[in-house]
């Protein structure tokens, strides 16, 4: 069986105010588009903002092990597409 792609949307304070609140729509839209090949979930915090703070690129999303900085719905979707190719 094919391994599912996991998408983790950081919902920590920094990411949330920097735009991940809008990324939550992925929780609904991604299963509609890709079915059960992709699994989307929120996570309390990916811990990336505190490492990267000087050049903070929040919000962060993780698609498998790939970190997407300044994530937008488009960026996440194209990352998923690239994985699925």
């Amino acid at each position, binding site marked *: 069986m094919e391994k599912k792609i996991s998408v983790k949307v950081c919902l920590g304070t920094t990411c949330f105010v920097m735009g991940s609140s809008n990324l939550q729509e992925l929780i609904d839209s991604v299963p509609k588009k890709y079915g059960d090949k992709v699994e989307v979930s*929120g996570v*309390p915090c990916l811990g990336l903002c*505190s490492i990267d703070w000087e050049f903070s690129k929040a919000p962060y999303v993780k698609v498998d092990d790939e970190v997407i900085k300044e994530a937008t719905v488009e960026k996440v979707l194209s990352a998923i597409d690239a994985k699925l190719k």
Partner: protein
Amino acid sequence: MFIDIDCNQTKKYNQNAFGDYFVSKRYPDEAKLIAVLSDGLGSGIKANILSCMTATMLLKFIEGDQIPISKAAEIIMNSLPVCKVRRISYSTFSAIEVDDEGNAKIVEEGNPEFIWLRDNEVMKPEYESIPSKTFKNRCLKVYKIKLKLGDRLIFCSDGVTQAGLGGGRLKLGLRREGLVVLLQDKLKETPDISSTELSQYIVNQARNIETDRLAKDDISACVLYFREPRESMVFTGPPYHQQKDAEYAKMFDAFKGKKAIAGGTTANLISRELNRPITMDTTISIGKLPACSFMEGVDLVTEGILTLTKTMEYLESGTYDIDNAAGKLVKFLLDSDRILFMVGAKLNQAHYDPALPIEIEIRKNIIKKMGKVLQDKYFKQVSIQYM
């Protein structure tokens, strides 16, 4: 013993001010509590001023500790002026001073006799009468009683005992006997009901038996409930020294009461140290607050600063029953008597990025403010530990 106290009121219909006044204060250092309920003559603004003056003055008198409560009440009784028209005193009052051991001193003048319930039976305490030297129709009742775990005291204004007066079913109103029956039935049904809910219940019932459900007088009910304290802990923010993570996580785990975590990093820390996975609620909360997460053995897991800030807002404005993470935290806090905040002092540099909205406050400040509101407005026992 913990004293769960609350008062609920409704005003006389068509009035825009409460004619009864309730004030209470905890003194954590002396492990005691003082509460005063006063009913001002008439209704509306006039009654509000009279009862407010009486109650606040009596509280100040008693808390000064220079004179005993009975003496303080006697002075007030003797000096309250008489209404020219009705020839009765300007206000009536009940006051209680009680410590954590259950030693209570109660004084009453003019208000309906308080109700003391033990195992759902009405107790008949002895009292001393002190007649007023200056006014013939005034008489102070002074009680000294010893309370036990599970006891309840109910104070009310005559708006409760006279509810329904002259109406169809209850010609003489609810009266004390009617109120006792109401209370006993309710307590049989829900023996552990909180003071907040019971006082609300009394006020609602009193209003319901009034003709057209319009309160003909100010209605107030104050309930004291002596019980074991409900303890809870809120863990927020990672410790300043990372090597202490394990130690604090163990402390969190060992805590006996209810537990909440506020903060994504904090939740990860506990999850890592105690080896318990976190799952996140999948409800979407665009533009509001991040959803809650779940962890075994923890009653509530939320995001940090944003949720705390919103919680603080709700607590200050008295907004309850909101279905989001902050609303859940409000409920969590209000369901507790003793709250311990474990506050991590580590700063998240990313929060100081000027691009972030200014609502992002410093954790320590929010918790300090929250502790004060919980103590002053909700009468909780709060302690804060920084780590």
